[in-house]
């Protein structure tokens, strides 16, 4: 691994970690598509701020651009509040407009700005190591690692200070304001943090793929845990792993790194979605099958039980008539026999003592 590769991964890991932290709250607040709006809108802020400041890594540029994200959000909310446009359409008309203006400015004045329409979409993480922080002749590593590192630190501070406030206002907004927290303030603080993170991540992954890093790791975590704290920590882990494996995949295939990171995030989610212990697709299917079998077993036992209580013992129920297929019926009978709840003699089905007990419990409800 060359130092160059190490630097790229360092930046990627910091970016991914910073994105996952506010991401968890966005996912829980059903605001994932707001990320889409923010990440597109900041481009206009970045370009306008660049015209004013003239330096892409200036902290003024970063703050100015982040403000444009928050402005976009308030514009969307204003459009939506007017009751003239639905929420999703409000998002859908505001950010493409801001983004289009930005792209036009960018194309027209591309020679003056060191970004072009391609880097907007692709990110330039591969170039991150070239811009180095050198203090009195000492090379202290890539500048973007420091910029993004500060944003990561800020995100960490934000959620550790306001963890409780974020939690309660995300879960129950009106309760939160009834106990004197200000959910609107929290909302805008969160939006500011997301905008700042998007601006920081812009250099590395461009303005669309950052959505993957913000939304997907928390979604993976959401299917694996029931605790907010663990959800956040797991998302950070997922984000970091996606960054590293995405980098190596891109390296191997010689393709765009940011795109590869986004795609790997998707693969992670697919795996979690299918195999998560309780909430994965297979887990749910297994559970459904188990419930169906449980229900089938119980209904067979109960019908035997009712027959027993009535007089017609000689007319044993034909289990095959009860179920949708003969195959399924013999499976049910097989399981019950295995559990020792029924006995099969002379072609007829009989309840054992244990089976009778279960049937009785089912009928009487505990």
């Amino acid at each position, binding site marked *: 691994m060359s130092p160059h590769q190490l630097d790229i991964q360092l930046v990627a890991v910091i970016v991914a970690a910073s994105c996952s932290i506010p991401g968890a709250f966005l996912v829980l607040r059903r605001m994932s598509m707001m990320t889409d709006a923010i990440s597109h809108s900041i481009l206009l802020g970045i370009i306008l701020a660049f015209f004013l400041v003239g330096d892409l890594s200036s902290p003024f540029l970063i703050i100015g651009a982040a403000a444009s994200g928050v402005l976009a959000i308030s514009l969307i909310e204003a459009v939506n509040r007017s009751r003239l446009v639905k929420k999703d359409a409000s998002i859908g008309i505001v950010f*493409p407009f801001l983004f*289009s203006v930005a792209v036009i400015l960018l194309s027209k004045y591309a020679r003056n700005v060191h970004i072009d329409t391609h880097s907007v979409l692709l990110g330039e993480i591969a170039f991150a190591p070239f811009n180095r922080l050198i203090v009195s002749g000492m090379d202290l590593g890539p500048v973007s690692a420091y910029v993004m590192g500060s944003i990561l630190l800020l995100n960490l501070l934000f959620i550790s200070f306001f963890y409780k406030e974020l939690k309660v206002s995300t879960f129950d907004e009106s309760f939160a304001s009834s106990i004197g927290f200000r959910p609107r303030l929290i909302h805008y603080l969160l939006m500011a943090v997301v905008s700042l993170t998007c601006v920081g991540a812009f250099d590395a992954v461009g303005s669309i793929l950052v959505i993957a890093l913000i939304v997907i790791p928390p979604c993976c975590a959401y299917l694996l845990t029931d605790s907010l704290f663990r959800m956040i920590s797991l998302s950070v882990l997922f984000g970091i792993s996606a960054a590293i494996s995405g980098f190596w995949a891109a390296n191997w295939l010689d393709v*765009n790194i940011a795109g590869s990171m986004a795609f790997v995030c998707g693969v992670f989610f697919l795996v979690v979605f299918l195999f998560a212990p309780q909430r994965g697709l297979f887990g749910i299917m297994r559970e459904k099958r188990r419930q169906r079998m449980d229900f089938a077993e119980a209904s067979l036992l109960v019908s035997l039980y009712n027959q027993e209580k009535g007089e017609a013992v000689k007319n044993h129920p034909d289990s095959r008539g009860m179920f949708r297929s003969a195959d399924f019926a013999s499976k049910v009978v097989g399981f019950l026999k295995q559990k020792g709840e029924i006995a099969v003699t002379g072609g007829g089905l009989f309840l054992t003592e244990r089976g009778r007990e279960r049937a009785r419990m089912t009928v009487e409800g505990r």
Partner: protein
Amino acid sequence: MLEFAVELFSDYTARTILLGAASLGVVSGVVGSYAVLRKQSLVGDVMSHAALPGIVLAFMIVGVKEQLPIFIGAALSAVLAVFVINLVTENSRIKTDSAMGMALSVFFGLGLVLLTYVQRMPDANQAGLDKFLFGQAEALVEKDVLIIGLTGFFALSVVGLFWKEFKLLCFDPDFGGTMGFSIKALDMLVTAVIVSAIVIGLQTVGVVLMSSMLIAPAVAARQWTGNMGSMVILAALVAAVSGVTGVALSAGFENIPTGPAVIVCVSVIAFFSILFSPNGFFTLKFKDAQSRREIRKDYVLKALHDLALEHDDPGYAHSERLLALGSERGFNVRKSLFALQAAGYVESVGEDNWRLTQSGIREVKGLSPLEKNR
């Protein structure tokens, strides 16, 4: 500019391009209305981004930049994204917005990966594939416009044929279901129509901004009319005008990509409509302020009456300060009092004291809370 426009319209190639832009506009205006009315505006966003890997894959398979395979590839991958969203939301606790964000970014990410992969292939044919990102109308040739026209014709025919069913689907799908229409089939049909609109916009507007071409015209049209038929027609008009204007701007000035130019046009129309239409933002604000004034006037009248009742004299005077107690910020009680005075319901008895007149007492008896909302 005028000269340029004349030149543009008289030139055969230019006419072809503008015809393409206009037909694209008509189709996306019509189809976008459904996306917006079904509150699925952002699904269009996801689908257009998700078309990218399909475009590149189709190119990789066919090996040349051929229109039809690229259309099919784009459509398939957009539909796959919708399928993934449904699969995820139906089988997990992941909500729609997150599923959309994931589908959008993963598909787009894959598209960029493939794009950079293709661009490394030693084949000159791939040049210009990245024009699908932001669109480039100049590249439209007669054959492209023909395909746009045909696909658009298909989409519009479907809309025309299933007009009533689609209307039902937008308005009340559950009710539609009870009337025996297969909502699932209709849903798929609408999705197919939206996808075809997206696909024909790819070359002109590009995958990144195509969604706005669907949403903004419909939003603009909705501000001017409440009738579905007029909305669809108006949306088509708005989109066609924006398409043509955007293409002309992009061709007329250097270094302006077509997609963003078109979107800026259509967005400006949308924002203008939201602000200034007869039922728009400013009218609404004006009406709100008006009814708020009425509510406040009624409130002051009632408060004066209630206070007076405590003295068993309906004409008992009270100070303005007492009336203003507890009112919201910006509630200027004096203003309401002056308005009531002008109507002859209250009269001033010096020193900021006010009392009800005889007609004011009659008026206050007629104030019933339930009347207020009629």
